[in-house]
């Protein structure tokens, strides 16, 4: 597809300039500042300046020269960031990459059909439900390739640079690694500081403070807090972080359904109470889109959602509250540790791919330090600590947001999240959970009976 020569689009609209790249990569490479401005990093003429960062790896990048692979991904900031960089990969390795981007819904609808029919393409794809994909045999185990020094310079790739939650995230229950993370996002509290200041309030630290603050901020015009509560898959992610932070689990680490236990019920009770007492009307139909739009329009004072939204909230073209937002850690419940939910987008390899080594080279390149730093310079929240600490990323994302999100990323408990989201029956479990949360938020059921019903459905699905 001709896409690969296009500049990045959308949420990460800001063109990556050579200067911001060099600011980003200087930390990694120790290289000096070059004075050529305005040439974007994906421009072919800068390749010679930056190729050294990849070529310093002790491995042969050219070993599959001439191959062609297909990368299939979701319309997502990672695809926006990586697509313009792909020509560099082709120059480095001699491997052609066809990039195919689809919206999340179309992707989820079409990829199972292709993989289920054992299609040889895509070679590399973004994985949307890891548990399903591993169980279905749609992912090539990567462990042996990472372990082979002829294929990988592991020291150069630097596993320790990944967030701990990311390292846990990549490891499957059987100890093998099927995917590589490309982004890291954590559930983050964000609030409109102007609205807080008007009432003389501070960012809440505990769940009880969150409720009190949300109620105090609510007026006839402005909702105190908005969070996802839409039926089906909508509510599950932020509500999951509440359950974890109350000391509960949806599916326990022992693999048993725990969503009807007192901790989880208390969390969902609080989630529902927040939205019923301080949320906007129609909370029950809110997905991330409604939460984000309302917050950016100044119609909502607080939300607890993905850290990725910091980029849009700070963008004056999209947000009426740019510069007014403040970010914080996950509120705690009764002295228990905060465990915000996390999400990593990962990429994996189709086991029916024609040229697995070429696909592996792409996986290595796309998740390497220099590539992550360049993507971060475009505003992408990557899986690498080094990329988060670059000044270019701090400027894009907001320094205050960076420190709050790093706190949340490090507080997260990946194992709890994986037990539910990566379960082979993950989608069924989350569907039941999402319906239950929606029923609590709309007041159709109380937390105990909704979670009991959800637990029954989960047990039936797990069998």
């Amino acid at each position, binding site marked *: *597809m001709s*896409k690969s020569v*296009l500049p990045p*689009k*959308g*949420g990460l609209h800001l063109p990556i300039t050579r200067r911001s790249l060099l600011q980003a990569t200087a930390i990694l490479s120790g290289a000096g500042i070059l004075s050529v401005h305005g040439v974007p990093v994906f421009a072919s003429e800068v390749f010679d300046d930056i190729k050294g960062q990849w070529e310093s790896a002790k491995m042969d990048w050219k070993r599959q020269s001439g191959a062609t692979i*297909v990368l299939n991904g*979701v*319309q*997502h*900031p990672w695809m926006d960031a990586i697509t313009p960089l792909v020509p560099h990969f082709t120059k480095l390795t001699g491997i052609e990459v*066809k990039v*195919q*981007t*689809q*919206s*999340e*819904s*179309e992707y989820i*609808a*079409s990829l199972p*059909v*292709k993989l*289920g*029919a054992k*299609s040889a*393409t895509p070679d590399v794809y973004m994985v949307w439900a890891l548990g399903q994909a591993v169980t279905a045999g749609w992912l090539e185990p990567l462990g042996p390739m990472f372990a082979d020094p002829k294929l990988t310079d592991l020291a150069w790739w630097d596993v320790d640079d990944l967030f701990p939650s990311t390292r846990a995230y990549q490891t499957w229950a059987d100890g093998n690694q099927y995917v590589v993370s490309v982004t890291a996002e954590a559930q983050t509290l964000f609030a409109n500081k102007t609205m807080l200041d008007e009432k003389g309030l501070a960012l809440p630290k505990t769940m009880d403070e969150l409720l009190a603050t949300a109620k105090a901020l609510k007026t006839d015009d402005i909702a105190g807090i908005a969070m996802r509560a839409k039926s089906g898959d909508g509510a599950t992610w932020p509500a999951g972080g509440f359950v974890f932070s109350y000391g509960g689990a949806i599916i326990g680490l022992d693999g048993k359904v725990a969503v009807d236990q007192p901790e989880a019920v208390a969390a969902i009770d609080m989630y529902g109470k927040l939205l019923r007492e301080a949320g906007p009307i129609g909370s029950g139909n809110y997905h*991330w*889109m409604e939460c*984000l*739009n309302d917050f*950016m*329009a*100044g*119609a909502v004072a607080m939300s607890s959602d*993905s850290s*990725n*939204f910091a980029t*849009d909230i700070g963008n*004056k*073209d*999209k*947000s*009426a509250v740019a510069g007014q937002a403040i970010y914080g850690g996950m509120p705690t419940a009764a002295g228990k540790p905060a465990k915000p939910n996390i999400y990593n*987008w990962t990429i994996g390899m189709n086991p029916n791919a024609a040229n697995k080594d070429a696909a592996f080279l792409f996986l290595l390149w796309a998740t390497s330090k220099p590539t992550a730093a360049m993507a971060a310079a475009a505003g992408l929240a990557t899986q690498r600590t080094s990329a988060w600490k670059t000044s270019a990323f701090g400027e894009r994302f907001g320094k205050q947001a960076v420190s709050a999100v790093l706190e949340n990323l490090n507080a997260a408990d990946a194992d709890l999240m994986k037990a539910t989201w990566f379960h082979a029956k993950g989608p069924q479990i989350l569907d039941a959970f999402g319906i239950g949360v929606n029923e609590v938020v709309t007041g159709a059921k109380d937390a105990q009976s909704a979670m009991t019903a959800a637990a029954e459905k989960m047990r039936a699905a797990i069998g």
Partner: protein
Amino acid sequence: MAEMTMTSSPDRVNLRPLSPATRLARALAPWARRLILWAFAIWCLFPIYWLATMSLKRQVDAMARTPRFWFQPIWDNYLAVIKAGDIWNYFGSSLIVALATTAVALALGIPTAYVLARYRFRGNSDFGFWILSTRMTPPVAMLIPFFVLYVRTGLMDTYPGLVIAHVAINLSIVVWLMKGFFEDLPSELEEAAFMDGATYFQAFRQICLPVALPGIAAVAILSFLFSWNEFLFSLVLTNEIRTVPVGLYSFVGYQQVRWGELSASAVLMLVPVLAFVFIFQKQLVRGLTMGATK
């Protein structure tokens, strides 16, 4: 002949003497009618108007707290979409697929419809029903078999493949609507032709087909619109070829919806369809008026 019924018959002169109240009611009736017709027009237009205003707004205005009816229009979204250029590929693919689908569906559907409408044979109604039933299957169940079939036969991600799929979806509607038009033709048409020594095919080709042309135009437009907006099969059966609905869906991303580009593209893509419909709209209504020949 067709023109005759095109001129609709408004407010006929009543021959009886009228009471003043009735007279008033008669005088107001056209305005009441007009009011309802334009109210319905506003209902049809409003969502499209709203979409169009969004394409001229910055995103921060599109989501504004009090919805903005008056704002400083910007053209950035249109420029961005046109400059990115993908929209022309979507447009080209959709145009090829929709036109080819329409042509093939008509070529296959009209003979079928004609025979079903004019000839009695065993199993006629069962056959007609089978054609209808091809539209009934929910697509979820069809996707995997379809996909496997396409990969095996090499039809995957090709124009002919997509056209065949769209024809399969639209054939039933072509057959059933055309069947209705042919049924309204008087049987004397062919009987006269047979007397003159015409073959079955000549009677169809030279006598009935020309009379049915306006009806064909109508069905063509419907078939074009259905193919133009078809989403699910276009999505699953292609990789590189992207039709307008699939292409536009890619503006709905993970944790972001690119409102400006989505709405600008949708408005842009409305233009060719409107042009198509506008050119054919006389035929469209006339086409559904086959009774004109009675």
